[in-house]
């Protein structure tokens, strides 16, 4: 096609568009969509990149671009004056952002439980150790029992996989690695902070930490669960992708958001295979995707995300739970997603100060 023809077609299209716009009268009525740029935990990037989400937002007057960043990293490593919003995956990171920046309000938008992406043979091994049970399409794992396997107790050393009953000589999973859950980097990302919240609850005898003194008392057993993992990804999309691509050998158990699993499961070319399963920790913890507005335009987008029925419905298709419960449950049932619709045993993270205290101690340990 020659340049001339191309320009010709462009001119015709422009003319046609002008006609369409004039006839439709007001589709673009409010003027150009306002460009809004923000930082978001990586797990919500596919939602923002969905054409339908973009169309709804554009229709409401906003051209939204979300860039991927670790939730805690948003608070620590970016110049937030350059952005309209920060959208970390949890309340603690949002609190940190609000504490250190001038903001235009905060919106609770979506929530999702923390789950462990794992494999049937692993679930069987954990069941054999008495810490997991088959719940039909998924598994339930006793949080305190699992943490004891990983962190050890007064009477038992931390376990490696080949020490679990039924796995002698690596019959089921031939790995001399420690029994550990892979999480993201605790210094950078929300999902690791949520994991830390759960670990601290278990090691504190099944009670939410209420002081830094309580946190210090359990710290020595917390540290190996994070430092033992070694290098960790800065955002939650990383470990989940590693789980999907590299299989059981590298990722026997990975701390993920339930929504990540649901989203992958309902994709047209899903990478979820039959031997993959979710372990629901009991108790678990919901992470609250919290939108922090940094500008006026950001604030308006935050309001839309937390209240617009169309956006809430689309969020359900990404596995996110919202105040519209029916939308989520309908999506799960329609697609036969092997997840737990209703969760009863749910805890809260410790206060921001207590959690931050633990994170900072871990941060110092990484420097050693």
């Amino acid at each position, binding site marked *: *096609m020659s340049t001339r023809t*191309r320009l010709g*077609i*462009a001119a015709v*299209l*422009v003319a046609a*568009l*002008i006609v369409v*716009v004039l006839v439709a009268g007001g589709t*673009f009525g409010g003027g*150009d969509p306002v460009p809004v740029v923000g930082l978001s935990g990586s797990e919500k990037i596919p939602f923002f990149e969905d054409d339908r989400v973009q169309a709804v937002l554009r229709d409401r007057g906003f051209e939204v671009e979300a*860039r*991927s960043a670790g939730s805690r990293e948003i608070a620590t*490593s970016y110049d937030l004056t350059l952005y309209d919003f920060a959208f970390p995956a949890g309340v603690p990171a949002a609190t940190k952002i609000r504490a250190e920046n001038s903001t235009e309000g905060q919106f609770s938008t979506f929530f999702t439980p923390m789950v462990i992406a794992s494999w049937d043979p692993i679930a069987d091994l954990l069941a054999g150790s008495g810490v997991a049970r088959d719940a039909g399409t998924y598994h339930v794992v006793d949080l305190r029992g699992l943490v004891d396997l990983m962190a050890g107790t007064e009477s038992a050393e931390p376990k*490696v*996989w080949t020490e679990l009953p039924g796995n002698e000589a*690596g019959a089921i999973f*031939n*790995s*001399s*690695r*420690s029994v*550990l859950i892979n999480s993201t*980097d605790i210094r950078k990302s929300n999902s690791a902070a949520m994991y830390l919240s759960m670990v601290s609850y278990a090691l504190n005898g099944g009670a939410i930490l209420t002081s830094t003194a309580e946190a210090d008392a359990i710290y020595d057993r917390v540290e*190996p669960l994070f*430092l*033992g*993992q*070694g*290098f*960790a990804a800065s955002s939650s999309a990383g470990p989940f*992708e590693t789980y*999907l*691509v*590299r*299989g*059981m*050998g*590298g*990722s026997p158990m990975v701390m993920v958001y339930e929504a990540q699993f649901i989203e*992958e499961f309902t994709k047209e*070319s*899903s*990478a979820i295979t039959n031997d993959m399963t979710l372990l629901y920790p009991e108790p678990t913890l919901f992470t609250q995707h919290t939108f922090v507005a940094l500008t006026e335009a950001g604030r308006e987008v935050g309001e839309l995300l937390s209240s617009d029925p169309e956006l809430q419905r689309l969020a359900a298709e990404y596995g996110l739970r919202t105040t519209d419960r029916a939308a989520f449950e309908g999506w799960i049932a329609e697609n036969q997603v092997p997840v737990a619709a209703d969760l009863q045993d749910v805890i809260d993270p410790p206060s921001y100060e207590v959690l931050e205290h633990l994170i900072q101690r871990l941060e110092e340990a*990484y*420097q*050693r």
Partner: protein
Amino acid sequence: MIRRLVVAALAFLLPATGIAACGGGDTTLTVIAGSELKDLEPLLDQIAEDTGYRLDFTYTGTLTGAERVLGGEEFDLAWFSHAKYLELLAASSGLVKASEPVMLSPVVLGVKQSRAEQWGWSNGAVTWADIAARADAGEFRFAMTNPTASNSGFTALIGVATAFAGTGAALSVTDIPTEEMQRFFNGLELTAGSSGWLAESYVESQATLDGLVNYESVLLSLNAEPGLLAEPLTLVYPADGIVTADYPLMLLNESQREAHTALVDYFRSPAMQETIGTTTLRRPAVPGVNIDSRIPDAVLVEVPFPGSLGVIDELLFSYLDDQRAPAHTYYVLDASGSMEGEPIESLRIALKNLTGLDTSVTGQFARFRLREEVTLIVFSDYVESVVDFVISDTDPNSAEFRRFREFVDSGLVAGGGTALYDALLLAYEMAGAAKEADKERFYSIVLLSDGEANEGLDYGEFDRAFSQLHEDAQAIRTFPILFGDASDDEMHALAELTRGRVFDSAGDLAKVFKTIRGYQ
């Protein structure tokens, strides 16, 4: 309003006209990349055609690359086989703006088929300890790159050390398994600063080696090329764990964010993932893409990668100071009249840098290390001096390093002719004798001359004398440096004769002396 509509109209046009609509041609992006990415070169035209972005690669090693990025050299993108060292080093700098894995390849062991069968490594659960036992017994002689210079060696070192530490968790400073590592490295017969050169050298020296450590993709490619190997390699994936490289494409220049996003989407599309798989024999980094059928399908146990720079540095120093066989390097140095002034001064600096005066990331690892021996042979019309140094303390102010610098300052004086081959032959005789006395060292020769031989032996006479040497001496490699008016032809002939490698100084002797350290 109108402008936006034109943009909208163009967006409609794009699918029909392809990339040509993107402003009349390609945008060139500068990429600092690991040399292992050279195998993507056949795809570069297609990439430019499909995306509108032409990638202009500058190849470099692991630590050098990290150092150049941190040093503020301006590149749009960085692309290494893995970037964890860079990420740890640059953690607080914000230099890496975005990073996405593009393809995967584990670093594993290629073992000659007959050996693998003989030792039951073909289908059994082999551990690093099994491998170390064979290496320690002198039965398994292998090649691996220098971990301070090249990603494949670096990755392997981390895998082996973590597996030997046996804690099941990421390596920490207190549990670096020095003795087991020594046993393993007793089998290391060939090292190099680049994975590509190592693979080529393995092919040349395959008669005297039993295998090599490299990327799965490189090993499979060696097997795939007809007539290259006398005996195919069996790929061994140790059961106690390996490390997989994930080739992240990193954004360094914020203003090219759009290009980075477009390239990442393009590379991670299922079609391109399959193309990469068939072209390079790497594994897809994206879920749901078929793996090339030539790649074995098995559960790979991945060891955790250390989470702190301190551990990695400690491990690298331990490799150099304790684990590997110590090097004995002969530097054959030209002090003829033409070296007068700037050339001899730059040679002095290049040598003294290796005693701790270069404090950069790469400089600290290029320093002469514990147990190492260095012999300087200075020549002009004749061999002027031969001086030995034995390193027992790596402090820049140690007595031996001071003695080294004093000699370099006073003993390297330009004047006279160029009896290059007399000096080189002497180096071979000395190194050969030293090797006969102590086989546990890694011997090599560096040759620096800025002109053609005009005294003593000529090349042909050297060649004949060389062929009379003991086979142990003949196995010692020479790394000639192209500098000044040195003869390109003769230096290349020398490298070929001794199975070494020519390095072009490009006027920067300090840099090339540092690079060659990866081959010693």
